[in-house]
């Protein structure tokens, strides 16, 4: 072909250099690839249509089967299985990975919306069809997403026997796997759901914390009175997690330890401790902390004012001290707190009686501006 093209080009009477040949070849390859991409787009479009039709059909069949299982009044799994010829369905759809995954996904989603006996029945289908083996096998897969998906299925369908295998993945380097494993352990492990926190080396992200909190709320059997074991952890993320959960789960026993954490070198932990103490309604403990005011960084000071405000703090003497702060944020927070129980005129009078200060002048100017604007 090259010879043919070269001959054809030579008929135009010029030299075909190697560079020129390379440019032509590149252009032809690029155009060919462009055509391939477009064909791929068209094929993908038809493939998507086919898959969505297949999934629709599959979903309808599974839905019909599961509705019978839940509301059909069958006495046992076996009775339901033989009555609805589930064997045929298994043979046709559950031999291939796509059918298995989709089926597990449907029963897991449905189980999360149900509880009691209905939820147990769905978990039974997962066990008796042997689909749990697919999920267990995923844990040994080298790809992180297969591991994470397997853990999620085992947790969602209450396969408690998987706890030892999942525990091994609770400190996995990939965040998604680690996070799924930790959630699954809360779902499955009744004896020590937070045991994984003891040996944790990797970080707990905010996203994982939100996920763990969600799992804790869903597990009604969880009795949480204290997080003291982890408030003393050497892992800062574990301390942060425990400090946050103490407040959210009203662990009043932890108040003492939380108060100690206000001095923590990491501001985020100190702030979480203050918020939790606020949630526990520990106004007295927080008020005591004011005596160490100057030891705290600005962020902690602001959090203290905010939390005290939420606890109806009314100590005017303290507020007057804050109003003379060098930090505008503190003065602003103090005024906001003051407005909770004083009207604007009283605040203005108080501000006028205080020694002049840049921040106070700025605030007085802003108030004067409000008045002008409101009047206009």
């Amino acid at each position, binding site marked *: 072909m090259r010879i043919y093209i070269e001959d054809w080009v030579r008929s135009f009477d010029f030299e075909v250099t190697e560079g020129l040949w390379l440019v032509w070849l590149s252009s032809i390859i*690029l155009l060919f690839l462009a055509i391939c991409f477009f064909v791929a787009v068209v094929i993908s479009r038809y493939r998507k249509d086919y898959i969505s039709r297949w999934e629709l059909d599959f979903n309808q069949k599974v839905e019909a089967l599961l509705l019978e299982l839940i509301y059909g009044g069958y006495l046992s799994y076996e009775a339901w299985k033989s009555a609805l010829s589930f064997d045929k369905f298994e043979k046709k759809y559950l031999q291939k990975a796509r059918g298995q995954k989709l089926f597990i996904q449907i029963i897991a989603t449905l189980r999360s919306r149900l509880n009691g006996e209905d939820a147990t029945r769905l978990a039974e289908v997962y066990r008796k069809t042997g689909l749990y083996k697919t999920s267990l096998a995923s844990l040994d897969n080298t790809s992180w997403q297969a591991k994470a998906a397997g853990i999620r299925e085992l947790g969602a369908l209450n396969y408690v026997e998987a706890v030892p295998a999942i525990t091994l993945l609770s400190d996995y380097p990939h965040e998604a796997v680690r996070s799924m494993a930790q959630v699954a352990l809360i779902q499955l492990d009744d004896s020590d759901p937070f045991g994984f926190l003891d040996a944790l080396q990797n970080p707990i992200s905010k996203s994982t914390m939100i996920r763990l909190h969600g799992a804790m709320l869903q597990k009604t059997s969880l009795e949480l009175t204290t997080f003291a074991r982890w408030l003393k952890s050497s892992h800062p993320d574990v301390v942060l997690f425990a400090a946050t959960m103490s407040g959210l789960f009203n662990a009043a026993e932890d108040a003492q330890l939380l108060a100690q954490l206000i001095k923590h070198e990491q501001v985020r932990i100190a702030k979480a401790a203050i918020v939790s103490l606020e949630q526990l309604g520990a106004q007295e403990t927080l008020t005591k902390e004011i005596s160490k005011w100057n030891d705290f960084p600005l962020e902690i000071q602001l959090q203290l004012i905010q939390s005290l405000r939420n606890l109806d703090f009314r100590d005017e003497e303290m507020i007057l001290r804050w109003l003379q702060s060098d930090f505008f944020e503190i003065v602003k927070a103090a005024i906001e707190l003051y407005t909770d129980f004083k009207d*604007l005129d009283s605040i203005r009078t108080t501000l006028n009686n205080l020694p002049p200060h840049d921040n106070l002048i700025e605030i007085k100017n802003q*108030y004067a501006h409000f008045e002008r*604007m*409101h009047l206009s």
Partner: protein
Amino acid sequence: MKDILNHFTWFFDGAILFYVILIIASYLLLAYYSAKALIEYLRVSKFINPHELMASPLSPSVSLIAPAYNEANTIVENVRSLLAIQYPHLEVIVVNDGSKDETLQLLIDAYALVPSNELVHYQIKAKEIKTIYKSTKPVYENLRVIDKANGGKADALNCGLNVASSEYIACIDVDCVLAQDAIIKMIQPFLSGSSPCIATGGVIRIANSCIIEDGRLIDVILPDNFLARFQVLEYIRAFLMGRMGWSKADGLLLISGAFGIFNKEIAIKAGGYDHNTVGEDMELIVRMRRYMIERNQKYRVEFIPDPLCWTEAPSTYKVLGRQRNRWMRGTIETLLQHKVMFFNPKYKVLGMLSYPYWLFFEWLAPIIEIVGLLYFLILLLLGQPNYIFSLSLFALVYAFAMFMSTLAILFDELTFHQYKRKRDIFKLLLVALIEPFIHHPMVVRWGIQGNIDFLKGKKSWGDMTRTGFTKKEKK
């Protein structure tokens, strides 16, 4: 004389070929990084449940700042759309930037607004706030409207930054339509990862001809207008292949002003938006990144490829020309302001790759194209044009343009599959075929004009006339 001319043409041909090879190589590299990043994003997304964030008291608060200037025609509906965004701790701050029309009064009437005595900590320089309004209706308790003197978009955003009470700020154009789960998706990078995320950018998509109802996108349709179609293809290429690739390579220099989320503390410490540039969105990101690098702090800037923000693209050449002219001036201003980064290893990928890329392939590209064209014309006048070389080079560039456009369409098809009608795919292919002949020369022209206007010291934004979204007809 002939020898000199021969040497000159040899050198010039070589330089042009080198430039073309370099630009092709960088686009291919970006496409590769994009593909990797998209696969990774889609895999991780499978393990994110938006309901967890929605239901959690631990989800961080976000202040959404929307500057508005003379938006009376659409403001009430646009704000309603912002208020309908699904996010548990969301504060919506609309900044009326001294509008001359009824924008403020319409908002006051529609949302029962009254002045409040809220104190403001002016951490960033911005024009004085006249009044901060809050609603008397509990249903709008998360809405605040700031009325201030006109100072431009950057000033309005800075004003919003001063007022915002959340840890994160989402800056958007008030006329954009956000997907309901836009904030949920965009906030995710801030909640995970090994180093702190300081900013996330979202994909902007073209909403012309799409069906919008009550501020929500109902149906995605490829625009009827050919100019808007060109922009659809441009946006898919720029966002799904360009920015996604740069994000993966840790070299993202631009988060579109139409929609981005930032860590408020870092944005303020870096100095907020710059009033002196028309490319304030790009400039802020560059400055935030410099702030972190110069303090040796670990950080990330992420890009979310989901189609979360829909905007009306200019549908006339006049308006589009003004927009592109402004983009070019913004790019030049930002690059000049941060010239210290140019090939500076201290700034790693930003200094060694991103900055030179923006300089040579964004700022200088139209100039180089025009110079190439002039060179060809000169040779033509001298009677010495190398037709074969020129045509071959043109064929290569055209083939590469087709390659990139079809690859971008394939990326979109395999990931977010936005244009579901089969005929839309063929229309997009047609657009890809003719774009290099019709649309691209115009883009080059506006780029040149942007350079000229920059040299003239032009600072204005230029009017952006919009025709409005397509609404679903009520039966």
